């Protein structure tokens, strides 16, 4: 083994326990979130069965499902991947891994407190911010610790140059505490007056669901795509340009057109959304130039496939977002399932699938154990792709249809909901596929955790029964 390889092994091993906690909890919340989303979807097909208990209503199930996906899976997975990428790019192992481990546990406890809070009746009522104060405080504190550790690792890096992944991930690390604390203080803690609450909630939702996930997901993609394709990121200039324009225009949007706020807010928001065309073009060019025609790995349903699919999903999701801000299309799709479709494409189709690809690559290297069911990885990938496609396509088309009916006053409102039922049935099928894919993912992760714990037990046992050295025995 060369010196470089042992160094890499050390780096990977240093991240082992934090990653196991982060990714293990993330896998659990992913499955929980899919189950809740499936239940929420079922309430439309059998509304009467869900009326006896508050926990069974759509108003409890859907926010819980969304938050479980975002806070339970997306953020911890992103943090774990960021930790590992910093360590690898900087060629410095993660020191003091106990702190991120504790922070990761705190994070998962926070998610649990938050989800229970939603069901018990403490939801704050704002989308993406439903967790009650106790849960959000835990999440904030845990994120600070992990972010701090990642930044310490980054600043202590041996490899002084910065890669594009660094820019994206560092920016994301700073973004979350700012937006999360602002939103929680100004909406939940000491609420501002009136409709300003809604504006801050929109700002927060956009910055978390679109900007943060895009930054982390693209940072991950810009690490793995060159690695798998076997050639460096093409080109540095486009990556720099994409970073600045995505961060600037992406964060200055979020207020929907026609909102009950003075006209400058939705106008500013729309024009920045339209400007997003520019980073999307740049990102498409980067992806095309880096991947197409490169003599890299074959795509066999493994990590490379997943990161590529996630990348394309990002471009599509951003295009849908831009479309929603155009005056004509936006008027049609506002208040419809189209927005849900775009969000699911962003969170699951882009971010989650990119994270799957990253985790399947990272975890065996960090833990030193291969996945127990490698063939299931490919099955999971196909199920996830199929599920996302069905879910997003059905909700997007259904949303457009719903919008056309809503905008036609001659059509009774009941007809617009009736028209949606067929699309909702199809979307439930998509959710089912996604649930199956998530179960397979969780299966691989949990078995690996068990295998690692078993190997720990075995090594302790081996140490205990090993024959003592002569010098250790006192005469």
């Amino acid at each position: 083994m060369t010196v470089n390889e042992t160094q890499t092994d050390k780096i990977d091993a240093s991240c082992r326990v934090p990653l196991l906690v982060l990714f293990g909890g993330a896998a659990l919340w992913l499955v929980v979130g899919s189950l809740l989303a499936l239940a929420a979807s079922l309430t439309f097909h059998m509304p009467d069965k869900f009326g006896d208990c508050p926990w069974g209503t759509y108003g409890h199930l859907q926010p819980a499902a969304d938050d479980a996906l975002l806070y339970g899976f997306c953020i911890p997975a992103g943090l774990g991947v960021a930790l590992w990428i910093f360590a690898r790019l900087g060629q410095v192992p993660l020191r003091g891994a106990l702190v991120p481990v504790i922070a990761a546990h705190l994070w998962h406890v926070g998610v649990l407190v938050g989800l229970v809070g939603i069901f018990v009746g403490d939801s704050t009522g704002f989308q993406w911010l439903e967790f009650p104060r106790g849960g959000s405080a835990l999440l904030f504190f845990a994120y600070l610790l992990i972010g701090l550790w990642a930044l310490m690792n980054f600043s202590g890096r041996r490899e002084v140059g910065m890669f594009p992944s660094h820019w994206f991930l560092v920016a994301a690390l700073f973004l979350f505490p700012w937006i999360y604390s602002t939103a929680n203080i100004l909406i939940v803690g000491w609420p501002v007056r009136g409709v300003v609450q809604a504006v801050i909630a929109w700002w927060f939702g956009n910055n978390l669901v679109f900007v943060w996930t895009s930054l982390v997901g693209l940072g991950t993609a810009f690490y793995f795509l060159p690695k798998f394709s076997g050639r460096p990121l093409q080109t540095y200039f486009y990556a720099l340009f994409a970073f600045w324009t995505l961060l600037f225009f992406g964060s200055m949007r979020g207020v929907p057109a026609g909102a009950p706020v003075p006209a400058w807010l939705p106008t500013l928001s729309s024009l920045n959304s339209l400007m997003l065309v520019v980073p999307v073009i740049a990102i498409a060019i980067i992806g095309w130039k880096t991947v197409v025609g490169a003599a890299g790995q074959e795509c066999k349903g493994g990590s490379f496939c997943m990161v590529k699919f996630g990348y394309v999903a990002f471009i599509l999701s951003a295009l849908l977002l831009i479309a929603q801000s155009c005056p004509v299309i936006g008027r049609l799709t506002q208040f419809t399932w189209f927005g849900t479709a775009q969000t699911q494409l962003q969170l699951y189709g882009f971010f989650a699938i990119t994270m799957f690809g990253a985790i399947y690559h990272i975890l065996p290297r960090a833990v030193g154990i291969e996945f127990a069911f490698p063939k299931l990885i490919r099955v999971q990938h196909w199920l996830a792709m199929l599920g996302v496609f069905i879910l997003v396509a059905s909700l997007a088309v259904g949303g457009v249809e719903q919008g056309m009916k809503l905008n036609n006053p001659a059509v009774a409102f009941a007809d617009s909901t009736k028209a949606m039922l067929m699309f909702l049935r199809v979307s439930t099928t998509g959710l089912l596929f996604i649930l199956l894919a998530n179960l397979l993912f969780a299966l691989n992760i949990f078995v690996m955790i068990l295998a690692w714990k078993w190997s720990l037990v075995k090594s302790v046992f081996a140490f205990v029964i090993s024959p003592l050295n002569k010098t250790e025995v006192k005469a």
Partner: protein
Amino acid sequence: MKNGFVIFLAAFAMMFTSWSAFVLGPQLQLGREKQVPVLNSTEVYPRSRPGEANQGLQIYRVNGCAACHTEQVQQDGVACDLVLTSVGKNEAAVRNAFEDGVKQNNWPLTPSQDLQVKGSPEILLHNVSKEIAEAASDKITAAGGKVEIHIVAVGPDIARGWGLRHSVAEDFLYDNVVQLGSLRIGPDLADVGARLADANWQLLHLYAPKSVVKDSLMPPFRYLFETRKIGDAPSPDALNLPSGFTPPAGCEVVPTPEAKKLVAYLLSLHADVPLYDAPFTPVVVAKP
């Protein structure tokens, strides 16, 4: 970019811009809003909600009603109606002026309208632009008639009766949790207190949506109600359910305090007052 600090500074600057535009700006502009005067009146708007309705808002929040319902009316545009209030002394002159305007100046008529001036008050021109309304007003006033230009809001939400004008910041001034909503799986609720003012209908709809709205997708909120045995006499609060939804014999369905508070909140939702930033001419429906 080799320097981490440079990235941090520039990223900080961008996030600061975003924060200033969407957090600081709106707070400075709207955060200290007070009541505003109602158009053509000495009243102020909004009135603060009674305590039960405020508690109902919390129940609305906790049950996630905003996941399916919005509380914001949208308006696509604004138009004018020309209303004839008096034909004056020379009815024929007014009629001629009107016919003249329609033929020569292309004043638009609604499909069911003819050129007869039937008597006042009557809407002569509906949903026309301001220029046409003002020109028509001048022409008919010159012929001796008295007209009024009414401002009307235009849009599918308005046409559906979901509100009389678009929602503005003042509508949410006293909401301690603003529940605007983002999906219309159910109808918009901004003006539901004016549209469906019957507390009994609201309670029935919460308990068994399908009993009042055919094919409703809304889940029945049965846990907000109590099904109990009828005591000495039926409770005055008991719901009057249609057949197919009645409780078992000898039982009655009574709303819990939460249900009553939620209904009080729903009935307090009004967006039918003209304001400077959402002008329209309120019209009184003639009483029989």
